[in-house]
């Protein structure tokens, strides 16, 4: 284990997200604080509408919170209504995203989808090409490298999406129900992958899931209800 293992990949405090206004107002996330260490894999569970996806969107810098503070890799990213960094750049350099759908670019092959993540961060093609192949191999889909997403099975697509999320050696991987579209065998395989990634790549991983049978693979489980975190196990 490296020294940075104990440094938090993510620290969030007092996050609140309100959708709409007036009588349509919904408080999706209410005063949430949490931290995720590098090398740690955390599950986020809770009933539908609890605010899990919204919290993940806040942590992933996809949506701005109404209030609160987000620190990624010891950099203050968001503090009290103010964005402190170039969010787009932060997302490509520090984050890996995986969703229920793989959301691969349909006109690029599996390998190109992975390379794209590196090329938008100005990595030379020579390096991105090699690393894309390494990642696809690591995730067991190397033989699908030259296939378009439409030729891949759901599980394969999701593995390619994980490879893309890993491409820029992120500090934090956020995944929203990544196994919901997969059968339980493939679902568990993907969850095992996340565990492996957290421990081997030394990234913080936070996964929203409804699959309670896979919770044994996580270091910690956060339960959410009505926009708030209830308690943490372990």
């Amino acid at each position, binding site marked *: 284990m490296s020294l940075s293992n104990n440094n938090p990949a993510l620290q969030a405090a007092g996050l609140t997200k309100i959708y709409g206004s007036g009588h349509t107002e919904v408080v999706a996330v209410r005063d949430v604080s949490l931290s995720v260490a590098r090398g740690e894999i955390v599950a986020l569970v809770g009933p539908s509408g609890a605010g899990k*996806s919204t919290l993940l*969107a806040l942590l992933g810098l*996809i*949506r701005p919170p109404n209030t609160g503070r987000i620190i990624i890799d010891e950099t203050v990213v968001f503090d009290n209504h103010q964005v402190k960094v170039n969010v*787009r*750049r*932060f*997302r*490509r*350099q520090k*984050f890996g*995203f995986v*969703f229920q759908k793989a*959301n691969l*670019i*349909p*006109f*690029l092959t599996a390998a*190109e989808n992975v*390379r*794209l*993540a590196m*090329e*938008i*961060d100005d990595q030379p*093609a020579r390096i991105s090409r090699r690393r894309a192949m390494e990642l696809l191999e690591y995730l067991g889909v190397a033989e699908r490298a030259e296939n*378009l997403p439409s030729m891949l099975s759901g599980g394969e697509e999701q593995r390619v999406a994980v490879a*893309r999320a890993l491409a820029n050696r992120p500090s934090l991987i956020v995944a*929203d129900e990544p196994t919901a579209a997969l059968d339980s065998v493939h679902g568990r395989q993907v969850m095992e992958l996340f565990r492996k990634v957290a421990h081997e790549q030394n990234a913080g991983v936070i996964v929203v899931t409804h699959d309670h049978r896979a919770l044994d693979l996580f270091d910690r489980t956060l339960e959410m209800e009505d926009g708030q975190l209830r308690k943490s196990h372990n």
Partner: protein
Amino acid sequence: MNLATKDIKHNFGRFVLTSAGIGLLLMVVMGMGGIYRGIVEDAVTLVERIGADLWVVQKNTRGPFAEISRIPRDLEDGVLTVPGVESTHGFVSHTVQRDYKGKSLRLTIQGLSWPLDKGLWLPKAAGRGLTQAHYELVADKSSRLQVGDKLPLGKEIFTVKGLTKGMISQAGDSMAFMTLDDAQAVQFDLSPESIRIERMARVNRLFNIELGQIQPQMSERAGGPSSGIPALGTSMVSAVLVSVKPGYNIEAVAKHIDAWPDVSVYTKDGQKQLLLQGPADRARRQLGLFRRLLIIVSAIIMALILYTLTLDKLHDIAMLKLIGAKNSLILGLIMQQAILLGGIGFCIAYLLGQWIFPYFPRRVVLVRGDLYSLAIIVFVISILASLLGIWRAMRADPSEVLS
């Protein structure tokens, strides 16, 4: 890795169809420009090929093309006496439309001053010039006439002796050349009945005046062919063409003749100007207007196509933003496709045009300069057209991926 070309490869069929559509549209734009040029060139080459230094026409008219001009044919001899004039000949030009072999045939007939001019100077495509003073013609091959065809005109049957190329009147009709006498005969052809009535009217007029009473034998003359009556004057031509001797100032000769009270004189360039301002002008402006409208239509259609292409990719664009792609990548994707679409459309337009324009009823002249400026216009409208799609893409929010 170029996203624009990867996307095109993925949706190749659609892209090919779209660029073919744009190509057809641009071909029409190109054709319009070419016809516009053709009109200008036809007008100019007509004057150029006829080659006269000066055009002597009826006083204060802008003849013989822009309006009707009639001057006595014997002005040929009068003008010849002017110092510096090398040669003169009468010019007759009029258009006939006849049915020939079941098709409508339009010919703009030019008189040649036989025997000096046998039409040997004409750009020949087949056959040769005139070989006798009557009943022969040389026609432009755009008339679809063949050497040896026999064409009834007036009271005679004319034999096609030769074919020219590129001899088109300013109205777009094929030109035909015959001797001046024949051309006049065709122009002033009257039916036997109207000739009979005309002669009877002359005899009646004669007896209504004193002369007829004193000299009744004159009625024989009056009732005969008009060429036999000195009092009726010579025949009329549309213009007299003048060649100026080398070493003489054309302007000075023109000034000399222009001082006469009964004629106006135009130089070669003056005559070209008249044609461009006159008959060619409205057609030219109409085409110019259509061309501009079509360019606007192309721009709008391209904008809609690119907008739709962008809408189709909106989810992918949101995903690109989510994983941190810069706006320039997305902008580049749309703009490169726009330019490719325009560029390929332009090439299709050009290639298709090369193949199809020769079959257009009017001459289409593609000038290099026009092609370059159209290429630049296409480039500009491609970029403008992509703006709508880009605007939509820029509004796409990464959180759209989540919904």
